[in-house]
């Protein structure tokens, strides 16, 4: 995946004189249209809730718009957006997880997946998704983030850009995150009544 639209965006930036960290409408629009749907998909993985995912993706763009100065000199906007949106998503997941532990009813919305209720397979799939999210919520945020980004199809280079690390260290972080995830998932699967 290439961040092809960034050239357009930088052009728009220099059209404004280049001195201000401001956005031209066209430039911002180009960046938004380029990344929005994929950001929503990433956050929706984390949360399972489309409306909330859309809201969070929009919040990430709002943050970008309001940055007092150019993040990474506008060289890595895609990475910045993935980092911000996935982090917001994981924070929301963890907050939801804490709420569910206090009040099991509160988790209903979060547990919804896009599929309509129906055959047994749907129910099982939903149960698994619920457990996966519960496991993610117990990981360190950065580990949950790297797993989500990689599962969303980002290459190591893209993951590295999003996480602000060297691409040579992605494999190592991923291996560790997977080990932590497997442990957490087993714990949850083994004691299904702890979190639900």
């Amino acid at each position, binding site marked *: 995946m290439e961040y092809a639209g960034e050239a357009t965006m930088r052009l728009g930036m220099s*059209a*404004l004189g280049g001195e201000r960290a401001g956005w*031209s*409408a*066209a430039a*911002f*629009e180009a960046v*938004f*249209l380029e990344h*929005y*749907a994929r950001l*929503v*998909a990433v956050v*929706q*993985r*984390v949360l*399972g809730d*489309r409306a909330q*995912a*859309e*809201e*969070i*993706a*929009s*919040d990430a*763009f*709002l943050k970008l*718009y*309001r940055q007092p100065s150019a993040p990474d000199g506008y060289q890595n906007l895609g990475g910045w957006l993935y980092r911000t949106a996935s982090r917001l998503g994981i*924070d*929301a997941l963890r*907050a939801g997880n804490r*709420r569910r532990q206090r009040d099991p009813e509160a988790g209903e919305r979060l547990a919804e*997946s*896009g*599929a309509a209720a129906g055959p047994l397979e749907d129910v099982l*799939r939903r149960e*698994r*998704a619920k457990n*996966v*999210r519960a496991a993610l919520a117990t990981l360190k945020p950065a580990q949950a983030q790297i*797993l*989500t980004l*990689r*599962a969303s199809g980002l*290459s*190591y280079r893209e993951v590295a850009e999003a996480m602000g690390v060297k691409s*040579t*260290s*992605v*494999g*190592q*972080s*991923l*291996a*560790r995150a*997977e*080990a932590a*995830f*497997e442990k957490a998932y087993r714990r949850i699967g083994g004691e299904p009544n702890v979190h639900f």
Partner: protein
Amino acid sequence: MCISDGILRAKVDGELSETELRQVEAHLESCADCRRRSAEIAGRAARTGVLLSELAPVSEPADARVALAHLKPRLNADRAPRPFWIPRLTPAWGAIAAVAVAAVLLISPPGRAVAQKLLGMLRIKTVVAVPMEREFIAEGKAEMIQQLLADAVVKTKESRRLTVADRDEAAKLASMTVRLPELRTDTPQITVNTESAFQFAASQQRLDTLLSVAGRTDLQFPADLNGAQVAVDVPANVVARYGNCPVEDLRLPTHGPYDDCVVVSQVPVPTVVTTPQLDLSGVAEFGLQLAGMTAEQAHLFSQTVDWTSTLAIPVPRNAATFETVAVDGVQGLMITGLADRQVVARVGEGSRNRVTKLPPAYGLVWVHNGVMYSVGGYGNPALAQPLAASLR
């Protein structure tokens, strides 16, 4: 030397270079321990991959254009939005600034000795609606132009907003007679905005930027705009809010319905000081074209208006209707059906923003005895005229 977990993991994803891959495979052949770890890592990666794939969204991709339309009103919502029907006569000048641009760029020719002398004086006597193309608003150009103006403006007096107890206190603070609608028997929340003043200087560079931001490099600004100055003074003014109105502070939650919300504002007409030589209708034509009119439309329109005494209020062409009505012994402008306004409020845990659609709004604006009044609300627009007529 054995191979790190990171390299073994990258191998699973095909993220190793060919050289690296050859070296790793060569080592694996000779190292049973690494083979075991490699299998373990690959197995875990596969299991995790399967589990995480359960989370893949099954719905259609999100519609970015719709989302963008929803986001736009929030982009510049750092400052509390003011109901649209209260004319914004501050450096932030207008929600839709294009025509206000025409009003602000009342400038003198460069090079002339009079350039710095501010001789002319405008007194607003009437208001007029200017139909604006919706695209102009939708593309956020108005915000950019507003920003551009804000950058060029020097505030000489900063307005402060004060909450007062009642009409008498407001009248005393603002040094004006405060008129309130007798039709409303409930107690209004009254605020006074203290006097503000600002100056603006037009330069070739600013005007060029303005045109390029507006995407209208095909236009030419009147030559006598370059290098000129304008000074605007907005006297203290009074705003009275009745009923449940959308809160202006974005950090506070806001809840409808707003049917009973009525906002009455009154401001002694601002003074705009500039040189008398300037061809105001020429400047106005420029502003109108900027706002989306053809040259011919702009010319015809600008001929019908005395720009020295008229405040132009931009009205989205397709989103609202407007008509001239008799009010308070003068001609007023009634705007209805502005349905596309949205308020951003932060609600609930984590205080994330939500965009709330407001019901259709109306506004009635007129100038009487040197004071500009507006009555606006979200309820029944038929109430505007009786409310205005009941001002005492």
